[in-house]
């Protein structure tokens, strides 16, 4: 359900659970707690198919009513003030099982714990939402702008930074205007309009666009004094710190050309994707692909029965002809992939190296810097599956590097 070490299960078959109850506790530092999104009985603990088509451990809950844990503040009133000290904030965020909602589902408390010797100067809030089709962050910014900004101020407190910037792409003028208005009350928070340019929302690209700093190869954002959070994460932080509400739901876009009623829903984790599709009017006839995420980075689902998880930002239904890839042709060395790669890599080369399993050369060619944005595959006139092989190579090179460290 999140990046890092899998959590350890705390409940047993037959246990009664309430909404917000801890189901599994973080196992290790880079890990996060999991709370029950529903109330009811634990039916079984077994393996279930996840979005990747592989089986993972899962807790099956027979849903009964909607009974919340009493500690959670379910009111909708805005609570602006936060006087907790940073350690306490981070502790609460950890308790609430918050992970990044921008896609990578990286446990947020880890990101908030700045490594010794480094200093965060800026907090960047990622409201770019640069993938076509997806609008969940957009909607969130419009509807929960206030909570968002309070969340940002909490995060600033936790990180002990003076400056926060919310980056939003130019194509969402309403969100920019809305947030600009709200932040007038917060002197250290500003809203910056950004060029519409995929993949502007990539962490490193955002930092480059806002601060004109480049995160060094293999480095972390803190290396250039920045920490980046998604808008959804900031709202979740607000909920956790001010309302004591753990991370059990998120906004999910459900969209697609042939869908009757595309919309954004606030969805509890564990809800099957198919239920969401039903709510949006059912799976259209001409469905070719169901994608968990956007068209550039999302994961195609083999089975719409899988549950919504912390990283699902949207469900995109692609109609038939668009879903199929074109036939691969030989690389004509047109250099389009090179010029389009935001990380300055040479995808055409990485792909052949990947095909020939030349992992050491891939490492020298900085394959690990690839952010998997997919721009290269998108642009290639020969329709080469560049990213497919690059991703494979990244996995292999990652293994290599890890085994070397040992």
């Amino acid at each position, binding site marked *: 359900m999140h990046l890092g070490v899998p959590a350890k299960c705390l409940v047993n078959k037959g246990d009664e659970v309430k909404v917000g109850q801890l189901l599994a506790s973080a196992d290790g530092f880079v890990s996060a707690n999991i709370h029950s999104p529903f109330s009811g009985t634990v039916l079984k603990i077994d393996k279930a198919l996840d979005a990747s088509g592989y089986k993972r451990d899962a807790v099956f809950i027979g849903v009964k009513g909607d009974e919340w844990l009493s500690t959670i503040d379910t009111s909708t009133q805005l609570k602006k003030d936060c006087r907790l000290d940073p350690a306490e904030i981070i502790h609460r965020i950890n308790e609430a099982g918050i992970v990044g909602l921008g896609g990578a589902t990286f446990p947020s408390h880890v990101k908030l714990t700045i490594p010794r010797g480094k200093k965060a100067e800026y907090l960047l809030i990622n409201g770019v939402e640069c993938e*076509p089709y997806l609008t969940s962050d957009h909607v969130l910014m419009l509807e929960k702008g206030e909570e968002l900004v309070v969340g940002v101020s909490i995060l600033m407190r936790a990180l002990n930074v003076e400056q926060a910037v919310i980056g939003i792409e130019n194509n969402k003028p309403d969100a920019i205007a809305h947030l600009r208005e709200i932040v007038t009350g917060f002197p250290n928070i500003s809203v910056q309009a950004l060029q519409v340019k995929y993949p502007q929302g990539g962490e490193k690209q955002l930092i*480059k666009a806002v601060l004109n*700093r*480049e995160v*060094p*190869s293999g*480095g972390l954002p803190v290396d*250039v*004094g920045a920490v980046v959070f998604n808008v959804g994460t900031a709202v979740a932080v607000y909920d956790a710190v001010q309302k004591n509400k753990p991370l059990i739901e998120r906004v999910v876009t459900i969209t697609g050309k042939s869908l009757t009623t595309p919309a954004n829903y606030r969805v509890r984790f564990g809800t099957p994707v198919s239920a969401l599709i039903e709510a949006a009017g059912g*799976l259209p006839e001409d*469905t*070719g*692909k*169901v*994608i968990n*995420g956007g*068209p*550039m*980075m*999302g994961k*195609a*689902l*083999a089975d*719409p029965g899988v549950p919504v998880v912390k990283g699902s930002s949207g469900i995109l239904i*692609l109609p038939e002809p*668009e*879903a*199929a*890839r*074109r036939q691969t*042709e*030989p*690389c*004509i*060395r*047109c*250099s389009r992939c*090179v*010029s389009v*790669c*935001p*990380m*300055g*890599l*040479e995808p*055409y080369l990485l792909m052949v190296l990947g095909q020939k399993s030349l992992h050491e050369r891939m490492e020298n060619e*900085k394959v690990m*810097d690839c952010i998997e944005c*997919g*721009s290269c*595959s*998108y*642009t*290639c*006139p*020969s329709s080469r*599956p560049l*990213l*497919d092989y690059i*991703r494979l190579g990244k996995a292999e090179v990652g293994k290599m590097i890890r085994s070397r460290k040992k």
Partner: protein
Amino acid sequence: MNKLITVSPSPHAHSGESVSKLMYGVVIALLPAMLVSFWFFGMGAIYVTLLSVASCVLFEFLIQKYILKKEPRISDGSAIVTGVLLAFNLPSSLPPFIIIVGALVAIGIGKLTFGGLGNNPFNPALVGRVFLLLSFPTRMTKFPKLEGFNTPVILSDSNISDATTGATPLGIIKEGLGSGETISSLMEKNHLGYADFFMGNTGGSLGEIAAFALILGLIFMLARKIITWHIPVSIIGTVIIFTGILFLADPNQYADPLFHILTGGLLLGAIFMATDYVTSPMTPVGQIIYGVGIALITVIIRVFGAYPEGISFAILIMNAFVPLINRYIKPKRFGEEVKNG
């Protein structure tokens, strides 16, 4: 739900660009120059072009199918581009046998020996052209006089005579300088004028005569984003600077930059042949280095060498350096120089 859904790794969208679209784009960009050649060389030009394209495509098909035993893929249009460009580099008076040999060499040796589209280190059309130039120096350096559709179609040795052949401006200059004349007197004596070079009213290979048509092609390809400006501009710019220096040093011995640019295959090479993706560098900086190299070698051969024209050799030589350029000139990696102080 009985229909199966598709699963693939991301990204799930594609720009819609394709190899054949690009290749046909190049063919369209070549059309103006082709029409000019038809206008000035008449049937001869039409037959050379058709024969060259047909044999290139045919050889591509036959070799792929029967020798390499692969799925033939001629629909991508690259063989057509090679065919047209090969024809553009030939005089319109070549006998069919030589054109077919040229196509065989271009496609067979230049391209498919290395595995076909995308793998060849050298520009196939130029491999074919240089092969022919070295093999049939006499035939390849005789250009018919411009008589439009009255130009005789020359299919065999018997009906080519000195009366029917003209010379290229570069040839005339080279020849004349050899016997001790000066540039200006030669230009005058042979009625060479820049307007004619620009409009194509001059001797030469099919595709190289009309500067304006080639420039139209360039504009089209830049607008369609088929190529970027780096290679053509760096070639032309370097030629201007280099020949400019020579010209200033001795205007009697060295032609001026404009002459060098408008005559011979320089524009054809800079716009259509040096820009071949497969055989040019991947990064803008690399492309500029490549362009400068081509320009320098071209001028050296033109001015000091035995051949009046050198761009074909220059492109082939720089083709050989492309792997090295690609190896040492890498794109700027993100985060390479940490900027913050």
